[in-house]
């Protein structure tokens, strides 16, 4: 696709490790739980945008698949994550207590690509997705970028990392769908105002939000990078469950693995409208026989 605003995010410099680590901190944050893990080898390798994958429930667990969770911070050998208790896996994770041990693989996935030094950036986080942007905000500031942020959620209790982002970004706009905190409405109301000043946009949150933010950025010719959340069985690139249609540098669309080719993709490269379908122009679609819906 000539005229793309983004180049695919490059691989992380360092490979992941697998470790059984101790929970050294646990803190409820609104509707979420922030866990801190003593995981020096992961902490020293991790770059913003990456995630870790947890084994769930111990040796007698019926839940076989790891749960991927974005890294929200790394400091002094400690990795922090913000977990939203939802189904059985995340509920188990959120219930981990200080002193308990958990098997974790990471850091996984491709980091957010950094802009040229000084390029102003807009960060957009939805729900617990905002947590994944804290480390990025710090790194952008260190690189001399002006950083603005929008963080939104369905309601006040599902907002995340507002304080942390406020210490790093200016302005920080807060929106809630129900108006229970900040401006009522979706993040896009704030994004549309702030995008004019941005040279690059980063977003993490639910798919519908990523799509809206990416579209807004692309519409005004600003490159955007989004960290997607697809259902993942392995997190390390071997199962092919986590794919979505992404336009490559050659302009052709492939089913790309969100765990190893993402989770960070160029916002103008993800074919959001086609997620969950098999577009006829995806590489190899012609070999699938009757196209399934």
């Amino acid at each position, binding site marked *: 696709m000539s005229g793309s605003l983004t180049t695919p995010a490059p691989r992380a410099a360092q*490979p*992941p*490790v*697998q470790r059984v680590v101790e929970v050294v901190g646990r803190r409820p944050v609104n509707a979420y739980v922030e866990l801190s893990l003593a995981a020096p080898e992961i902490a020293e390798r991790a770059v913003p945008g990456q995630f870790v994958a947890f*084994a769930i429930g111990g040796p007698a667990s*019926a*839940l*076989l*698949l*790891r749960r991927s969770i974005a890294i929200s911070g790394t400091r002094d050998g400690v990795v922090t994550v913000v977990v939203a208790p939802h189904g059985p896996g995340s509920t188990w994770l959120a219930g981990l207590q200080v002193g308990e041990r958990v*098997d974790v*693989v990471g850091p996984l996935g491709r980091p957010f690509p950094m802009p040229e030094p000084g390029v102003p950036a807009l960060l957009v986080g939805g729900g617990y997705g905002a947590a994944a942007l804290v480390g990025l905000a710090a790194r952008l500031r260190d690189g001399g970028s002006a950083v603005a942020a929008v963080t939104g959620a369905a309601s006040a209790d599902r907002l995340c990392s507002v304080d942390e982002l406020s210490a790093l970004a200016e302005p920080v706009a807060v929106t809630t769908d129900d108006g229970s905190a900040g401006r009522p409405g979706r993040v896009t109301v704030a994004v549309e105002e702030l995008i004019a000043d941005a040279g690059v946009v980063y977003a993490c949150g639910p798919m519908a939000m990523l799509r809206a933010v990416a579209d807004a950025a692309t519409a005004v010719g600003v490159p955007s990078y989004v960290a997607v959340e*697809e*259902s993942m*069985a*392995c997190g*390390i*690139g*071997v*199962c*092919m*469950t*986590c*794919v*979505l249609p992404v336009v490559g540098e050659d302009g052709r669309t*492939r*089913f790309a693995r969100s765990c*190893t080719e993402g989770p960070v993709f160029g916002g103008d490269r993800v074919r959001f409208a086609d*997620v*969950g*379908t*098999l577009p006829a122009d*995806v*590489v*190899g*679609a*012609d*070999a*699938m*026989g009757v196209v*399934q*819906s």
Partner: protein
Amino acid sequence: MTALETAVDMRTALGAAPIPSPVLTASGCSAFGRELEPFVDLTAIGAVVTKSVQLRPRSGRPTPRMAETPSGMLNSIGLQGPGIDGLLADELPWLAERGIRSFVSIAGTRVEDFAELAERLRGVPGVLGLEVNISCPNVESRGEVFACDPGAASDVVSAVRAAADPAHPVYAKLSPDVTDIVSVARAVAAAGADGLSMINTLLGLVIDPDTMRPVLGGVTGGLSGPAIRPVALRCVWQVHAALPDVPILGMGGIRTGLDALQFVLAGASAVSVGTAVFNDPSAPARIHAELAAALAERGFASLADAVGHAHRPNA
């Protein structure tokens, strides 16, 4: 890997091809090996069984492609992959350069597809042999799966055996979704299979209670993981009892060395680790070590001595 530290001789073979460890990956559960490099010394395991390849590149099915189930998962990937050209150009050389043995899984929807793939793989460096994934719909038989019909299954196997490199053992991968797996095993062995891989996934379905529709785009999918282990073991047991001389690559829910031991005792001379890799990417190496330790504890001098042991009344 503690292969060299334990007293047990862990060497085995796939057909006539010797391998230093009986633990392999399972097709479709370790892609083409690269992503496991940070977690496993791939040169030390038996082989990487590559994701089933077809003639042309395939996109695979739309998402969702999986559903977690109790002690297992359902998948419907649709054999996404680069096609034989991509495999030969990119994946097999990468493995060969590193001295990693590859056992190449091939798939198709026509007998000729399989034969052509076997032909293309003749003499390719690093390729140890072929696993024939016959759990594919046969386009010439109203989509009935090859593996569900002894006749169709043996047509594929004899075509592959004829086209393949004579140095490549040909393993036929059987489906458990049949009334009589022994008759399928017998047919493909007679058609020239040098060994049997068993089992492939069981056909399953999950309905999403929210959408109230099947979770998978393909409606049904393949069930794998520890949930199916007793079925897999039963298949290995039955086939080894009927055909004790046909080597078996056992798989289905292997998660620990003791799980692998069960397959060996039931008659498998090597095992593949599939879904467990998603839970624990270092599983193949760990399982090798655990199996070696378990054999040592039980007084076996070699893996070979344990193969089929559970069938021998006074052993």
